[in-house]
Structure formats: structure tokens, C-alpha cells
């Protein structure tokens, strides 16, 4: 987990963002436990309230649930939601690609050809 201590972005938001990504990309599945708030605080060398706040934010978004005495667990994610998340990412990446294509002076046909070639490769 990558945390920037000295930027303006609150640490708890950074932690929440990284877990959020892991959950929405399926790296963390429904039912998976999150590290305990104190164990995570110990590993990241930050305060317990920071990890707790990060988890609370995720919980408010419906991504995780706190089970009394057992800690936080990932909620089974809506397949639709996951798909939407990935579609958004696709759009973002495609926008970047179009931007790069314009700089390189590539036309739509050339871009589509490159896409087709990559699609067939084993990624």
C-alpha cells in the first residue's frame, strides 16, 4: 500500500482509495476480510483513528461491512457496479489513447487497426 505522508491529501482518503480500487477491480472479493484497523495502523505506522476513518468511509459507501468482534469484511459487489467501474476506466484510457493518437498524427483507422491487433494478442 502506497501512502504519501506529506501531501495535502488526508491519509485516510488515500487508504480508502486504494482499498476501493482493490474491491472494484475484484482483487478483493466479497467475504474477504480487511486487515484489522490496529494491524493496518501498525504496518503503515500511522494512527488507529486514521485506518478506522478510512474503513468507515468505505462502509458508508457500502463497499465493506463491520462485523462486531470480527472486523471489516468486503461486501459482495454488484456485478453491474463492477462492470460500470471498468467501463468508466475504459473510457478514461480510450480518451488518453485518442489524445496520444492526435499528437502522433494517427487517424481513426490506424487506431482501430492497432486496437484489433492488440485484442488478438494474449494479454
Amino acid at each position, binding site marked *: 500500500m502506497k501512502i504519501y*505522508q506529506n501531501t*495535502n491529501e*488526508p491519509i*485516510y482518503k488515500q487508504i480508502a482509495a486504494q482499498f476501493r480500487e482493490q474491491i472494484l477491480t475484484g482483487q478483493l472479493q466479497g467475504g474477504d476480510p480487511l486487515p*484489522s484497523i*490496529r*494491524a493496518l*495502523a*501498525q504496518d503503515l*505506522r*500511522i*494512527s*488507529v*483513528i*486514521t485506518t478506522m*476513518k478510512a474503513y468507515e468511509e468505505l462502509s458508508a459507501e457500502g463497499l465493506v461491512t463491520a462485523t462486531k468482534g470480527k472486523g471489516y469484511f468486503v461486501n459482495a459487489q454488484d456485478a453491474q457496479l463492477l462492470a460500470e467501474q471498468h467501463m468508466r476506466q475504459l473510457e478514461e484510457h480510450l480518451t488518453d489513447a485518442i489524445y496520444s493518437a492526435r499528437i502522433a498524427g494517427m487517424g481513426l483507422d490506424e487506431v482501430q487497426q492497432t486496437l484489433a491487433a492488440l485484442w488478438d494478442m494474449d494479454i
Partner: protein
Amino acid sequence: MKNVIEIKGITKHYKDFTLGGVDAVIPCGFTTALIGVNGAGKTTLIDILCGVTGKSGGEALYFGEMRDIDDPALRDRIGYCSSMNFFPPNWTLKTIADSMELGFDNFDRARFTELCRRFKLGDPADKKQKNLAKLSDGNRMRTYLAAVLSRDTELLVLDEPASSLDPLARDMLCDLFREYLAERDGERSVLFSTHNISDMENVTDYAVFMSHGKVIAQGFVEDLKQSYQLVHGDAAQAAKAKPLMMTFSGNATSFEGIALAAQADKLRALDTAVEAPTLQQLSVGLLRKAEQDE
């Protein structure tokens, strides 16, 4: 949220200093910092909470169920340590181990030996023992910490533990707190006092600010950082900004201070930089304001 200590109206009258009434809560499962300048009453409050000094009035509720600090069962659950002269200077690791064993039910000699080894203090079982007086301040404090951490307690109460430690050792102290809390996840708490919070910021969950014997503010650090904001600006805006701020310090070129979050929008409209303060900046602001108000 459970509280490990609820303090109601605790007072103590000395000839030239009065503590109180102190009203505060120490939340369970977290690290709480008691912040104030020297002479604010932190040591007196901590000593009273641990039964080392008697109080003149008020009461404290511990672990949600115990009220009498003279109850041996309660004392066994609390791990108290002062920063200086905690043990007599002619004591050695061995005498400390012997006395700790007699003084409490939950002292673990094996753990003490292990901590002494980890802190590079020596071996309590050695034939030749060194007097505490011969150690440096830092090593003496480490010895005290080794002793108190060798007990299986539920509340660690340390009076200025960081004062005699260098930055590296303070960092280690932060790790020790996290380790202590994680070992009994949620059931242990730490309370420590300090006059300089900067090295201990990233382990502090809850802060209680004291000035002139009273509590002037308290809260979870994340909440405090949202309730109070750090404001910077140019001298040109100083006059307009000052009435909106809680503390203010300015010179010919710029100004800076702490303001309540409610004023943040108005302050931003004046073309100032408004951001969350560090706990250190917040402490300075709150304590300075308390001094001015006195």
C-alpha cells in the same frame, strides 16, 4: 464508542496551583495524548488517575465499571510510569524485576528479559548488574518502559515518556504503542502526556488539551483537523482576516493562525490559503489562545 476513563470534575488544590475541575473522556482502544505546556497540570492529572496523588474532589470511572483507584484489581489493570526517578537510582534490572513481581500480579519476567534484550539494556539475570544511576536518561527511560510493558495491562498511562528520548527512540515508542494496542485488538488503550506532540503525531488518535489546570479542548484527531483550519495569507488581508480567526500572528509580509472551520469559506473569499492543520500546529494555536485568554 466505549471510554476507558471518564473524568468528571476532578480537582486538586495546591498552595500555588489548582487543578480543575477537569472533565474529559479517554476513548477505549486508542492512543490519547494529553497535551499542554509545562505546569499545565498534566502530571497532576495523570498521578491522580493512577492513585499516585490524592484528589481534592471529583471522580473517575475506569473501564466503564470501576471507580476506586485504591482497588488492587483496578491498579493491576493499569500500567503507570513516570518519566523521571520512577525507580530508586541504586536499583538494577534484577531489583526492578523482583520488585515488579511483588508489586503486581501480571508481571512477566520472561517478557522483561526479552524487552531488556530488545532495548539493549542488559540481562536481569546477569551476575554483574548496573545501577540505574549509571545509565543515560534515554536508557533509563527505556528501562522504565521495559518494566511497564512487561505487564499484561489494559491501560498504559505514561507521563512524558518522549521527553528523554531522541527522535529515533520516539519513533520506536510509537511502534511500541501500536504493538501494545494490536496485541489485544480493541481492549487496550494508551494515555500519554507531552508538551511537544510533533514526534508523536502519527500514533495519536485522540487529543486532550490542557492549560492552567483545565481542559480547553478534546477530540479525535481527524475530527479536530476538520473543526479547525490553518490559515495563511498576505499582510494585505490581515486586518479583514483577523476577526475571523481564533489565533493570529502576523508581520509586515504575512500572517498565519488557526480558525474555526465555520469561518473557512469567508476566509477563502479573502484569498487566503486554508488547510487542515497538523496536530502540532493545532496545539500551538489552541495553547497560545488559552494563554492569551488567561
